[in-house]
């Protein structure tokens, strides 16, 4: 769970986007942010559930948490490198 103290530096609302849109939007955003920044991405896409954590791990970032919201999920990612 994400604690309330983790404030996102940037929010990417990809709820209208189908696979692999939210993942690609996240990758683009992470690339633009600075190391240490926290990026939150909203996604209603089922593939994101597995694809985003996998990418975060592979790319060497930190998945701070995944929060279930009404009809979508919020993935919180810290850019590590």
């Amino acid at each position, binding site marked *: 769970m994400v604690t309330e103290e983790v404030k996102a530096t940037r929010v990417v609302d990809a709820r*209208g*986007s*189908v696979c692999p849109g939210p*993942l*690609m939007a996240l990758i683009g955003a992470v690339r633009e942010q600075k190391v240490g920044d926290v990026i939150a991405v909203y996604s209603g896409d089922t593939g994101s559930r597995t694809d985003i954590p*996998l990418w975060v791990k*592979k*790319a060497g970032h930190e998945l701070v948490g995944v929060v279930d919201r009404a009809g979508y999920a919020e993935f919180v990612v810290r850019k590590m490198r």
Partner: protein
Amino acid sequence: MGDNGNERLAMVVFSGTMDRLMPVGILASGAVAMGMDVDIFLTFWGLQAFSKRAQGAPPKFSADYADMAPMFAQVMKQKNVPSPIETLKTAKKLGNVKIHACTMTMDLLGQTKDDFIDLVDRTTGVGEFMELAKDAKITLFV
């Protein structure tokens, strides 16, 4: 593996219908997301879908799926599904995606690189593409 040490996805795209081009864009995106390089060899109908002339209208669905095509097209519009070309543009922005136009097809139809949209990086012969594909981790014919 490529010169840069990245794993590679090589796709030969022969088909030019929506049902086949959609997964080309999506698979290329997935590969880029997972840190792979992508080489796409466009030939015959696949290449024609990237001609400047073809850009006025979305690619048609294969006749095999004619009964479902209108429903599918409507869902895609409703859910804002990007076109295969838009999806490839995004993949290219985020990773190393090279799109090759088949020289043989172009010779047959009297086409030049100028007949195709800028997304097409270069013209490539089949032998040269095989050189790239033989080192690929995944090879697909679509």
